[in-house]
């Protein structure tokens, strides 16, 4: 699965970093930084949790 983030929507809650730290980090303002934009099936659970728990719907899983 492929991941995209919309930094303009991000509120810096850090929910994605708590759910899937291998894929998401934050800059000094707390705004999401995507570490990898491709996730394998083994990581699907963590990535789906990040999408689910993002308060601003700033993360999307595309093309699966």
């Amino acid at each position, binding site marked *: 699965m492929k991941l995209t983030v919309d930094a*303009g*929507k991000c*509120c*810096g*809650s*850090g929910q994605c*970093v*708590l759910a899937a730290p291998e894929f998401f980090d*934050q800059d*000094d*303002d*707390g705004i999401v930084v995507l570490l990898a934009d491709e996730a394998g099936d083994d990581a699907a659970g963590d990535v789906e949790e990040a999408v*689910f*728990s993002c*308060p*601003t*719907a700033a993360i999307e899983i595309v093309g699966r």
Partner: protein
Amino acid sequence: MPPIRRVVIAGAGQGGVHTAASLRRLGYDGDLTLVSAEPSLPYQRPPLSKTFLRDPDPAHIDFHDAAHYSTLDTRLVLGDPVTTVDRPNQTLSLRSGETVRYDHLVLATGSRPRRITDLAHLRNVFHLHDRDSSAALGEQLREGRSMLLAGGGFIGLEIASAAADLGCAVTVVEQLPSILAHAVPTQVSDFLLDRHRARGVRFRLGRSVVAFTTDGDRLASVTTDDGSEIAADVVVVGIGSVPCTELAAHAGLKVDDGVVADTRLHTSDPHISAIGDCVRFPLAGRPVRLTSVQHAMDSALHVAKQITGRDAPYRPVPWFWTDQAGVKVQMAGAPRAEHDRTEFVAGPSDAAFAVRSFLGDRFVGGVTVGMPREHLAMRRELAAS
């Protein structure tokens, strides 16, 4: 109790929307109806006092598209609020006259700004509560040259920041001697006060509004208790929120500055739960009402777990954020958590630091300014304790 096959969610803010997503994620496959009083697709509220106020581009508040609700197999009812609940028959009525049956009802009715009713009808007086009031306020701030804020709380000060950015001369009148009193430690309150002042915002602390004058349908000036008169093109009232409990009270549920719920977020009727801004529930033994995105989402997930048979008490780790005076401030832990000492943590710049609060040796919460990683570290610690 028989299995729950029909869930209705009254209110489509952050909590209502997340209840629907949570139920499906947990495997609930019965009927799901999400009822909104507002005519537009559910949208995000935090930006209403931040980005959307500066620039009314709908992209700032866009939440999920219509396809999201189809994917969740959720019937989204827009612009048709729940008007009454018939608890003995487990049905509710919508304004349109439609009757909807429920096995479980989730009240996610939210809160509204506390109003100064004498002022509410005036055209340049704002109580920010929805996308329309934010858009209208933003328009007047772009046209106006001055803004007066009554109250020194989070949302008001975010609006004050936006108004200053839009070129308004801003004056804040706050009854208490400090801003964000009781909500953040003194170091944070003092830091933000300095930041706002450096951006040209003027403060009248320890003062209250005692009189006002009008000019036609506009408020012209206010007088504070020291006798000074302050004129303003735009006036914002930011004096807190009140829970929307009318529906619950009318249905005969227990209400006391919020819909009263237990540690499971069940109301006095086991077929009805309450979440988000409208619920008062016990947290660490003390009844509280939390008005935050965190609580909206966590209480939504909690109720979805209850509905799908996963019983546990609701024990969230509260967190909150505000963007104002050019910085992001993040809080972790229960607001006003009891503590007997604080610890200052220096950050990488003058505009970054943290304050941690302790009760004895136990870390009970903290506030960070411009230190998002420290904020997450605090939340991890609180979750583990």
